[in-house]
């Protein structure tokens, strides 16, 4: 078999992390090649390099036998490499045909464009009107349009980054039939997925990455799912991490009970208990519904079904305000988007959720604001020049501590944290974990959602595993190691 793409010693470093460490392997012409690995293993980084979105720090790519420099996404497209990203990059306000021809404006014959477009769509078995607007299509149909766009560019290499995380089972099957069709036409397909069963169903060969390192490529028929899980997890880390003594908290007072929670297509039948002085982890891959679950508990979005009980009393909230009044606090997944006020300074950011304290009669007591901020800045050792410094100028770790301070100022009983340490350097991470353990020992109940397995294993007393919107495991004590958790998260 001829090599289509060869990665030679590809290295990519980011401050504090090596995203790709000397990765070398090849992708053959006309195969479906799956790349698997944990969150942050470097799969997407590698594909972004192939797609020209980012440049490697070292190594080279050999494409069709020749070393190439892929300087930008347009260059990649001209070479015949197309990427369908996890987040679709279509213009929702344009029609299907316009989207497919975007960036190739020299063609003006509308009728011809439409005809060609419907031909491509038909060859994919997708019954979509080329004139319908993209925003009116389902996610699966939009995905088809993305793929059609790639095909109509005469792509020879098609990269799919988590293509089915938003698809239903039927839609996934349809997608797979199309991929097999394309393969028959000689297109090389690179397929990134967390769902191992599906990887095994569709791929010819599987390459495994872990922590930016390449571990090997295996013909799909010659390896089992369990073997792949073991590779992804990595043996060495298992013994190292299961040292944490996990206390059984079920003797403690029951704080929060969730019964059959469900919302839309995000999650369903989620039930769990949270005890006093417990850190309960929810581990799941991206798109497993963890963040959506947390948002519904906190009242940001409404539940479709199910009941939440707080100390035995019903507590289905319809707004975060209610949740906060009842002793909840939440550190959101996306700090910049849903946490920080970049137009305000540190003390204002800290005193955002305690209006009764800083302004009992509506008038702000400036001294109180400064005192509270100073106390928390000191207590969490936030590195700031003064509490009047703007938060946008702080490092990620300090910004996160400011948000934690905001919630500590409300004296919460239940702390919901989502991706607590995303984008934070190692030192600050350790500090934040110490804060977390301190809070737990002070009597808080903490629900920690994370896609970093290491974090969940090291910090939690008990671990729930979420997959495709349902809880699939409740792990504690001896049961907990990296391999077990991953097995539940990855396969059914």
């Amino acid at each position, binding site marked *: 078999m001829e090599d289509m793409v060869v990665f030679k010693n590809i290295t990519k470093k980011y401050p504090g992390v090596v995203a790709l460490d000397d990765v070398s392997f090849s992708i053959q012409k006309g195969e479906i090649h799956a790349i698997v690995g944990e969150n942050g293993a470097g799969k997407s980084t590698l594909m972004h390099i192939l797609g020209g979105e980012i440049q490697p720090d070292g190594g080279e790519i050999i494409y069709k036998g020749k070393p190439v420099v892929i300087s930008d996404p347009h260059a990649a497209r001209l070479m015949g490499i197309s990427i369908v990203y996890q987040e679709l990059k279509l213009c929702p306000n344009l029609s299907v045909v316009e989207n497919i021809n975007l960036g190739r404006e020299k063609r003006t014959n509308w009728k011809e464009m439409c005809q060609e477009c419907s031909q491509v769509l038909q060859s994919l078995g997708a019954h979509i009107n080329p004139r319908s607007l993209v925003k009116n299509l389902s996610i699966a149909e939009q995905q088809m349009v993305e793929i059609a766009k790639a095909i109509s560019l005469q792509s020879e290499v098609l990269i799919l980054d988590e293509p089915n995380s938003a698809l239903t089972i039927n839609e996934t099957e349809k997608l797979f039939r199309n991929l097999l069709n394309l393969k028959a036409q000689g297109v090389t397909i690179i397929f990134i997925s967390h769902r191992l069963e599906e990887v095994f169903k569709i791929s010819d060969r599987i390459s495994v990455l872990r922590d930016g390192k390449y571990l090997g490529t295996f013909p799909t028929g010659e390896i089992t799912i369990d073997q792949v899980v073991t590779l992804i997890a990595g043996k060495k880390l298992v013994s190292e991490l299961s040292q944490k003594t996990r206390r059984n908290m079920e003797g403690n007072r029951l704080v929060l009970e969730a019964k059959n929670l469900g919302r839309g297509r995000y999650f369903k039948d989620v039930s769990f208990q949270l005890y006093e002085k417990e850190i309960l982890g929810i581990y799941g891959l991206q798109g497993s519904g963890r963040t959506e679950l947390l948002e519904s508990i*906190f009242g*940001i979005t409404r539940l479709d079904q199910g009941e939440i009980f707080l100390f035995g009393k019903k507590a289905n909230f319809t*707004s*975060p*305000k209610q*949740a*906060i*009044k009842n002793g909840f606090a*939440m550190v*959101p997944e996306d700090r910049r*988007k*849903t*946490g*920080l*006020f*970049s*137009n*305000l300074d540190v003390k*204002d950011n800290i005193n*955002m*959720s305690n*209006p009764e304290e*800083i*302004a009992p009669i*509506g*008038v*702000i007591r400036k001294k109180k604001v400064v005192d509270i901020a100073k106390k928390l800045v000191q207590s969490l050792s936030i*590195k700031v*020049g003064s509490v009047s410094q703007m938060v*946008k100028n702080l*490092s990620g770790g300090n910004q996160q501590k400011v948000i934690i301070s*905001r919630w500590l100022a409300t004296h919460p009983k239940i702390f919901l944290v989502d991706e607590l340490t995303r984008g934070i*350097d*190692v*030192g*600050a991470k*350790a*500090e934040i974990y110490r804060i977390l353990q301190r809070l737990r020992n002070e009597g808080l109940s903490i629900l920690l959602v994370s896609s970093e397995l290491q974090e969940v294993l090291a910090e939690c007393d008990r671990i729930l595993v979420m997959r495709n919107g349902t809880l699939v495991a409740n792990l504690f004590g001896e049961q907990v190691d990296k391999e077990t958790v991953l097995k539940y998260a990855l396969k059914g």
Partner: protein
Amino acid sequence: MVDKENNQALFPETVEALHEPGQQRFGKKQSVSKKVLVEMFRIREIGVLMALIVLLILFSFLSPYFFSVNNLLNVVRQVSLLGIIAMGMTMIIVSGEIDLSVGAVYGLAAVVAGMLMTNGVSILLSLIFALVAGMGFGLINGMLVTYARIPALIVTLGTLNVARGAALIASKAQVIATSHRTVADPAINTFLFIGQGKLFGIIPMMSIFLVITAVVSYFIFSKTILGFHMRAVGGNKIAARASGINVMMIKIVAFVITGFLCALAGILNLSFLANVQGTVGYGLELDVIAAVIIGGTSMSGGEGTILGTTIGVLIMGVLRNGLILLGVSPFWQILIIGLVIIGAVGLDTWTSKQSA
């Protein structure tokens, strides 16, 4: 180990914070003056305040009539209605919305008050009705923007026309005169005094109202939780909700306050002119928005101060007054104000880039 790493990571930050003055002292002369300049611009209102001072000096030299107590008091009186409404507009824009209906609501409130008092209703009651009408429009604007989720630009473009149309229909496009002859209520003298009178025989009552409005607005906006939440909502709506702020309520309150201030300005205008017609306040919204923007308020929300708006309003007034005294044609005045708006925002963008 971890601690050490952490300290290292934080080291540059801390050092910079501690040694900033020293760096300035030992830095090159050029960079020192630049830094001082940037530092000054960091106080948000400094830029506009300097612009105002430059204008004052410029016009004082160019026109012998400009720099006199009478003329300057006159400038303040001329912008007082604009200024009163601009205080509310600042709150709305900082909350992340916009209100185009202010000029029309101002006109309608004046028509309501004028018609009621000329038809035998007591002056006090007429004024209350006018204020309620103004607040009612604010409430409708706010509800449509928040609960019905229609963009503010569209909602208030709609209510602009509704209010203007209502004012014209009610007044039948006739001038309604409010004088001793048409109003029976003996309080008419007091009423006319609030617009036409002068405190101590020199300070126009209208500018007193501007000052009171500015002070109260400053208090609400800078010293109460309401103003704090307005800045939070405009800065990051999603985070504000997730922090437990009732985002919709904050926005509605901003609209209602503005509606009230529009009506107040309408009443003052009625008193000042002793007559009103349905077209009063036509296009006023654009002047109001211009003054707020010149004052340093960001159209994307979250940034802006009452002090800045006050200065912005005064700049508008000084520009108009000065240009008139210099005999510049009204057409050129319009053009120059346009350039000032762009210049002010350009300066603002430049300074915020410097301090980032």
